[in-house]
């Protein structure tokens, strides 16, 4: 261990891959840590927070400067309540410190580089040490097992491999459990289905938009997933989606969908995951300290209220981050979960401050539009929001077979009804256009939902 700090006493036990007999089929991957009492968890969090703060104070110029500005010393962090004295870290800070400005270990201690896609300018570079790589896999293994995955599962990973964390981190997690991993990557639906049939795929990891596309693809090929495939579970993430979309995917692919949350800045997937209850995503709080804050004031919101998720890494070696502003809007579910895990749960991400559109002065999240569209019968799975001219909003949505009787009047009625329902939800009345399926630019990967052509 190179850093000047001694690992927390229990860290060795916690971080070593727990030894397991071949044929892993238990209910927990890491029962000790997943069911730790809240009191013990908080003691562990404090020790790890203090260690993290000492390490960044010793090695990361960015944090050294921040601490100097506010006069903070590592020893000032005496309890978890002192967290709010620590500075925030934003995605702009990550870009400003690109490529290696936030490293807390020498470069030769790093093992892997990931980047987080940026729409503008430089990406965010994220370094992993050997222990970080292992931890990320451990958390994914925990998450998968929480949904009932065993070594007998065949895992077809349809996320993009490469710089993106989505595919690699889950890949390693599934291997830890002993699943057969098929690194398929996204796209080429023909081949995906062939792999599923030939190797008896039971688990998939997929974006919601591609899952919907794939469901439509199966339908077109007259394949009934429950009859013709062995699919059992899908881990769906990387894009926010609604409960309605979950049901559509479950129905269309004939499996159970588990919501997951992750971001490259915090290892990627496996930060928070639904258990078999499918009710909120357990955040692995022995690795991450979470806060839900008012995005404007930076102050905590009342418990259970929606706000921006802010995360502090507790075990990250190569690139610890303090109070990272995720920009994701969510809320905490604080009650105990019947699964026995003591780690608190996050509700579905309801928006991303980055995705927010401002149309005619009104703040709108694409998910609000998606919710309305998905609740409407007669329309399909894909949609596109086009902003044009002087703040005109056009919502294009695919017509579904169920919505088509052949009568033009009914189509006009459907467009009007959707327009009214959208206005009730987002307070701006868009023009709704029904389009044929396959007409919108999808995307066997991440869907592009907003096109802004405004000349403002």
């Amino acid at each position, binding site marked *: 261990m190179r850093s000047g700090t001694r690992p927390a006493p229990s860290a060795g036990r916690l971080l070593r891959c727990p030894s397991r007999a071949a044929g892993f089929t238990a209910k927990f991957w890491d029962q000790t840590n997943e069911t730790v009492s809240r009191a013990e968890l908080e003691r562990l969090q404090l020790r790890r927070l203090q260690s993290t703060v000492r390490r960044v104070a010793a090695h990361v110029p960015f944090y050294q400067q921040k601490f100097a500005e506010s006069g903070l010393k590592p020893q000032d962090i005496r309890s978890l309540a002192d967290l709010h004295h620590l500075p925030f870290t934003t995605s702009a800070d990550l870009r400003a410190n690109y490529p290696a400005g936030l490293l807390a270990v020498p470069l030769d201690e790093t093992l892997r580089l990931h980047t987080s896609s940026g729409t503008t300018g430089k990406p965010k570079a994220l370094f992993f040490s050997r222990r970080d790589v292992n931890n990320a896999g451990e958390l994914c293994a925990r998450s998968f097992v929480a949904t009932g995955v065993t070594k007998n599962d065949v895992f077809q990973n349809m996320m993009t491999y490469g710089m993106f964390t989505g595919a690699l981190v889950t890949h390693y997690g599934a291997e830890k459990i002993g699943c057969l991993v098929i690194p398929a990557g996204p796209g080429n639906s023909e081949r995906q289905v062939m792999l599923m049939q030939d190797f008896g795929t039971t688990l998939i990891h997929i974006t919601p938009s591609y899952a919907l596309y794939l469901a439509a693809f199966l339908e*077109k090929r007259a394949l009934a997933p429950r009859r013709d495939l062995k699919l059992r579970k899908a881990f769906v993430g990387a894009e926010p989606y609604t409960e309605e979309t979950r049901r559509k995917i479950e129905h269309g692919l004939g499996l159970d969908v588990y919501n997951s949350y992750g971001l490259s800045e915090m290892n990627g997937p496996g930060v928070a995951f639904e258990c078999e209850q499918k009710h909120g995503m357990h955040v692995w709080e022995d690795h991450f300290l979470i806060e839900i804050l008012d995005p404007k004031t930076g102050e905590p919101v009342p418990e259970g209220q929606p706000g921006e998720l802010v995360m502090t890494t507790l075990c990250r070696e190569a690139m610890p981050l303090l109070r990272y502003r995720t920009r994701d809007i969510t809320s905490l579910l604080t009650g105990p979960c019947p699964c026995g895990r003591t780690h608190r749960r996050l509700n579905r991400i309801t928006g991303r401050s980055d995705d927010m559109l401002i149309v005619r002065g009104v703040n709108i999240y694409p998910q609000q539009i998606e919710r309305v569209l998905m609740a409407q019968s007669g329309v399909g799975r894909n949609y596109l929001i086009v902003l044009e001219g002087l703040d005109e909003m056009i919502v294009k949505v695919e*017509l*579904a*077979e169920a919505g*088509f*009787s*052949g*009568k*033009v*009047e009914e*189509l*006009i009625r459907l467009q009007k009804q959707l327009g009214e329902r959208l206005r009730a939800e987002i307070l701006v009345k868009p023009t709704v*256009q*029904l*389009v*044929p*399926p*396959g*007409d919108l630019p999808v995307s066997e990967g991440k869907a592009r939902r907003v096109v802004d052509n405004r000349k403002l």
Partner: protein
Amino acid sequence: MSAVKLVAVFAENKRGQTAHITEVLAAANLNIRWVTIASVGTFGVMKFLVNDYRLAHEALKHEGYVTTLMDVLAVEVADQPGALRAVAECLAESGVNLDNTSGFVANRRAILILEVQNVPLAREALQKRNLRVLTQEEMLSL
């Protein structure tokens, strides 16, 4: 059964759409006996009477089109003034709403195609007035 089946297709109102849809039908060796196209803003609906509606429906569906089969009534009327009025009156008296109507004359026979909400009710009303309601086979052999 004297309802006539039409194949309806949803299409975007853009260049080449009609050509592409009719190409699909031609490729399946389908003969179009009657067609209507209604376009509203950005989209349109095309309706066809073809010699094999099941095949047409399948062929279009396979190409990814949103398509459906519709029941309409085909009525033969006298090729003379007042014929349409007689039909319209008859349906109005029976409380049937006429959604879309079109007509043509073929081989000196005047045919009206009626889209109504309640096909059985409309058929009964027309037959009571001794108006001849044509079957699919009759329509295809005009």
